[in-house]
């Protein structure tokens, strides 16, 4: 194992310790520890169903962990009231795994949603800002008037990205931003994420099992397995981590310590 803290000099933005979450008898997070430094881009890799999305939702308060501590900017958030939670969520932007665009609203209204509802910005001003954000992710004004269901998967991801950055949050979560996209569109999204993170100076926590994406957007990488972070280190360390789990995962081998639960149906 490498040094458990982020690079020295960067005070931690988010600190999880001993986070435990279970659904019924099924334990998903089993005492998970993780630190995300200010303005760093941390990527968490891990197989499907290992609790990556659950981890993000615990930090956002969409799910409540059974025990453990989640601190944001040094403040314990586990027992936040609803009012505190709403104030906290203003710091966050989230790109959902399935984009999660509101299909009853037009594209620009989706992007402007956080501005109009959350920040009480006048509609006209929010609309202009929304179109600027859409342009920033490479979508023209004509797209703004469409319904989300009229867009391709890649375009939906870009709209979701524009929505996540529209309120200029301090922290952005990207949940499998490239899953389900063709390699070229995946790289477009990666470039956009890198650009957003660098330009806005945000703290980014991303989840992926796409190694090309991880290598591109990460400063630091952590690997989750069986509800715990089993390894973390810089992007370059990953290639020769000496950790058999990491080696198996980043090289995509069926043989190794990670046993897939393959059941005959």
């Amino acid at each position, binding site marked *: 194992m490498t040094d458990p803290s982020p690079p020295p000099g960067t005070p931690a933005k988010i600190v999880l310790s001993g986070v435990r979450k279970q659904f019924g008898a099924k334990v998903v997070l089993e005492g998970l520890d993780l630190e995300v430094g200010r303005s760093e881009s941390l990527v968490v890799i891990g197989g499907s169903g290992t609790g990556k999305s659950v981890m993000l939702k615990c930090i956002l*308060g*969409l799910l409540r962990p059974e025990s453990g501590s989640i601190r944001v900017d040094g403040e314990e958030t586990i027992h936040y009231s609803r009012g505190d939670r709403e104030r906290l969520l203003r710091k966050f932007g989230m790109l959902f795994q399935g984009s999660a665009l509101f299909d009853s609203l037009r594209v620009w209204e989706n992007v402007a949603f956080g501005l109009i509802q959350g920040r009480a910005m006048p509609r006209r001003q929010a609309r202009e800002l929304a179109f600027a954000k859409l342009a920033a992710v490479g979508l023209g004004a004509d797209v703004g008037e469409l319904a989300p269901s009229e867009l391709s998967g890649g375009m939906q991801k870009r709209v979701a990205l524009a929505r996540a950055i529209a309120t200029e949050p301090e922290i952005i979560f990207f949940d499998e931003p490239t899953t389900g996209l063709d390699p070229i569109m995946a790289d477009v999204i990666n470039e956009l994420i890198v650009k957003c993170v660098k330009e806005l100076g945000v703290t980014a926590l991303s989840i992926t099992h796409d190694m090309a994406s991880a290598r591109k957007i990460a400063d630091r990488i952590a690997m989750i397995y069986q509800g715990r972070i089993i390894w973390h280190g810089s992007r370059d360390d990953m290639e020769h981590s000496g950790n058999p789990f990491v080696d198996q995962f980043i090289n995509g081998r069926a043989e190794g310590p990670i046993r897939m639960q393959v059941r005959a149906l």
Partner: protein
Amino acid sequence: MDFLAAIGRAFLIFLESTGRIVLFALRALSHCARPPLYLRLIGRQMIDIGYYSLPVVGLTALFTGMVLALQSYTGFARFQAEGAVATVVVLAITRELGPVLAGLMVAGRIGAAMAAEIGTMRVTEQIDALSTLATNPLKYLVVPRLIAGLTMLPLLVLVADIVGVFGGFLVSVYQLNFNPAVYLSKTWEFLKVVDVVSGLVKASVFGFFVALMGCYHGYHSRGGAEGVGTATTNAVVSASILILLSNYLITGLFFSK
């Protein structure tokens, strides 16, 4: 012994979900008192429930009034009481059939749509997305529907009352050869304010239940398309049962000896 255990388990599950539903309703209602209220959304729901349900509710009421007149005429003829047709039609429509049938129709039309829409938003993480965009999903999705259900059903039922009585009038005058003036005066003669008011109170309660069941089952649906389908079914069935149950209780409140 297993049999008793099964009954006990079912009863516990029933109590638990009743508790959950009551809590859900209270949490949603507590949001009605706190700004912001989403007036645009409330308006849109009111149009959806009130205006777009008019055809189906009107049609139901019209045929119900017509068949009531026909049935009571042929039934009452057996003991020479045909004169009571007008009174029977207006009392049955305003006190019972108007609110109950409108409630059941709206449960099928609106309750199902609410459960499907909110359920889809749940399983596609749109409800989580609302939270991350600093918007309370209960306030944004549930409160407007509850308010619209509570306020629009009485208006629908008022229309249903008028259309239903008109249906009875049509059949009586054109098919059964009643004198129109006499029929109308008979309609008014025994009608009391409480008959109409009790129907409207019922309508308000039914509208609330339909919206509550649609929202509750949609909000807690999971497991993809299948889960949304289950939520839709549960919303309609539970709303219908609640309508029939509360109909009996409210009737007892208004008209018990």
